[in-house]
């Protein structure tokens, strides 16, 4: 099999990259070892969050949030995106101080999408919040989507533009011969001029195949979802300084996240849950939203996610190989960035450049210059 571009990984980054490339006319093969969106991209919390992003990520994330607003139309699909807004709760003065300090930074950079709110506004927007909370910060463009649907929508759109998506197909080995990448996969030999590594929690292994070392780690953030409850919260809810996050979907179910981690067993494609930590998350949830004491947990799960030491992704060209690019290490907030990352990767592959400053995301930013 032959293609212009070979993409490794059928998560949202791989599928969005395939979509943007195929739409621009490139011939694309995407390999996914399991099935599309089997891992982080299909099981994440669906948070489409611009609020509180690291300053380095804000430009990409802002572009992405604009793309999300029209994504269903763009892809002619159903991503489940709902622009409900997002509120991060401040529990004390220290939290508010933090928010104001950030506000100054944001203003200096010309960003205006984060709005600090006082206690009255917080209570008006979230009537069920614990009244001891002192305020918060909101962003109105944010919201949530259905992870599997969104990723699959990119995949289907990519396929409509001619991309070949192979699932149950693992990349085993990859090497550069002359001007071609030769890949050994479950489906046999594949040749391509360009390679894009979107292999999520496995991306360091793909990077290694082409000579790029990267301090990637992986972990298994956990989620739990309740049975249906009466509607009590419109916006996605987070906290300024606590491990706490939830959103209520239209069907009444409440998804509780917050970042507590289970056990990641990458070699076996599996995760295990840490119930003591989930219990802690349950406590925090009830503390912030006493109404949640009545909730019944329906399911609990975890997904394998790739982390960089600075919690920023790797996005950009390989440093030790020609015609190879990376997009991975999204550190538990890459779902929101998917649409723009696909665009950036397509631009890099097709034109060698992008409108965004990718310096903070270089793969070699941790290379030691001295022993």
């Amino acid at each position: 099999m032959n293609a212009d571009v070979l993409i490794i990984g059928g998560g949202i980054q791989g599928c969005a990259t395939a979509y943007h490339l195929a739409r621009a006319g490139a011939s694309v093969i995407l390999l996914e070892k399991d099935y599309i969106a089997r891992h982080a991209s299909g099981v994440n919390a669906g948070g489409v969050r611009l609020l509180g992003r690291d300053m380095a990520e804000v430009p990409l994330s802002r572009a992405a949030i604009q793309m999300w607003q029209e994504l269903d139309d763009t892809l002619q699909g159903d991503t489940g995106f709902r622009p409900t807004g997002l509120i991060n709760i401040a529990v004390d003065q220290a939290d508010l101080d933090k928010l104001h300090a950030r506000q100054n930074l944001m203003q200096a950079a010309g960003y205006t999408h984060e709005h600090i709110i006082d206690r009255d506004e917080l209570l008006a927007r979230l009537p069920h919040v614990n009244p001891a909370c002192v305020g918060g910060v909101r962003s109105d463009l944010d919201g949530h989507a259905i992870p599997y649907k969104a990723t699959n929508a990119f995949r289907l759109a990519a396929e409509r533009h001619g991309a070949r998506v192979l699932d149950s197909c693992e990349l085993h080995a990859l090497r550069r011969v002359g001007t071609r990448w030769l890949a050994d996969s479950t489906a046999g030999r594949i040749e391509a001029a360009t390679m894009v590594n979107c292999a999520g929690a496995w991306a360091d292994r793909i990077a290694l195949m082409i000579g790029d070392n990267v301090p990637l780690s992986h972990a298994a953030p956990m989620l739990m979802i309740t049975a249906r409850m009466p509607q009590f919260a419109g916006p996605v809810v987070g906290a300024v300084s606590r491990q706490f996050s939830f959103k209520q979907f239209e069907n009444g179910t409440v998804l509780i996240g917050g970042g507590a981690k289970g056990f990641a067993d990458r070699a076996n494609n599996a995760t295990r849950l840490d119930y003591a930590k989930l219990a802690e998350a349950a406590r925090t949830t009830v503390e912030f939203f006493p109404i949640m004491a009545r909730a019944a947990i329906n399911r609990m799960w975890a997904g394998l996610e790739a982390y960089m030491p600075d919690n920023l992704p790797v996005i950009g060209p390989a440093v030790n190989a020609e015609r190879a690019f990376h997009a991975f290490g999204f550190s538990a907030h890459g779902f929101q960035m998917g649409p723009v990352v696909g665009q950036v990767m397509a631009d890099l592959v097709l034109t060698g450049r992008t409108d965004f400053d990718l310096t903070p995301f270089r793969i070699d930013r941790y290379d030691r210059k001295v022993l």
Partner: protein
Amino acid sequence: MAHDCVIVGAGPAGMAAALTLADHGVRPLVLDRAARPGGQIYRAASASPLPDRSVLGADYAAGAELITAYTASGADHRAEADVWHVGADGKILFSTDGGTCQAEAREILLCPGALERPMPIPGWTLPGVMTAGAAQVMLKSDAVVAEGAVFAGSGPLLYLIVAQYLRLGVKVAALVDTTPRDNYLRAAPLLAGALRVPSMLTKGLSLLHEIRQAGIPVFRWASDLQVLGQDRARGLRFVTPKGAQEIAADTVFLHHGVTPNPNMTRALGVQHDWNPDQLCWHVRRDPFGQSTLAHVSVAGDGGAIVGAEGAQCEGRLAALNMLCRLGRIDRATRDHLARADLTRLKRLAGVRRFIDRLYRPQAALRVPQCPDTLVCRCEERSLGDLRAGFDAGARDPNALKSLTRCGMGPCQGRQCGPIVSQLLADWRDEPVSEVGYYRLRSPQRLLSLQELSRFNRVHPAPEEAQ
């Protein structure tokens, strides 16, 4: 709480295992969500609300003896202890008195029993439609019956509950038997094997005889079942070789066999294999019931359908093996003590093969035939919804679940799981074994957030002095 052995489920399998363990000085912790030990077959056998429990049959009465022996065995039985997580690390979380407790075990024996195979005919989710097993649970636990009900399906349990109803003088509108005519031919060659345990066959035959004697309408070779009614069941329509039939009834009981309850063993991650004879997943085990996780054994209908007697044999065998693993008996002793049960199981397997072949459910009753028939009751997903999901690229049960929400509801896929795997196998034109099953997780059922929020890691108690 650190234990040598924790048993989940106090049905015939769990109770028999506990007795064997107790004989050798190991006092297991036994967790069961029911109010009393007994499991499905002996539900409430020690405290029947019925004035005369003999209507339930001699087997049921025999259960009382097993329960008495079990109760006297010294096993640490916890009633109303609902297990919601069993971990590969040997930790078990269960709800009791509104709180979650954690137990820890060197050896774990899972005896969660069976579930009834869903029969997704049009209208199967209407109020008034229940499983025959539910009829039996109501009868055994609460002495409640439904007058004038239709019973439809096939298999020994269906005939048993009909007979129990008739003995109580409850009016039964009809028995609609869906056992296909071909099954008799196919099962015939296995009859010799079944005759090695003649008592089982006579029991079955006498049930059918009893039903015929009672003079209720019995329709054989029925197919194309459909529950009548808009907002609740009003009757059953079906086709027999004599033509289309309709029977009015406010209650329709459906049943066509049982399959192992997969949720606990699936969430635990032990290996399962598709069994084409029983049309269900079996837990992969050695002859002593040891699963692919050495410290976890599975006995009874929760591993493969073996029936109440087989469940007891398996319970005892698993107990012997765990005793050996705990160093209480040596291998030679284990093997010696195991002989009788291994032999008996082999004989029972002959009967089981015959029953499985004879009452093999119709393919057309195992998966829905109409696009608007619901597959997932919790999330209200129909055959048509699933087909659309499949056409949108979701070829794996988990992908289909992510896309359509089928199987995401509180029953944790217990109802729709087998249907979805079969549908995907049909659509992909591959065996069910290739398609696989939902990736399940704990909790096994809805868990209150309040309860979870109160849970604290319980540190194991210091080892008891040996």
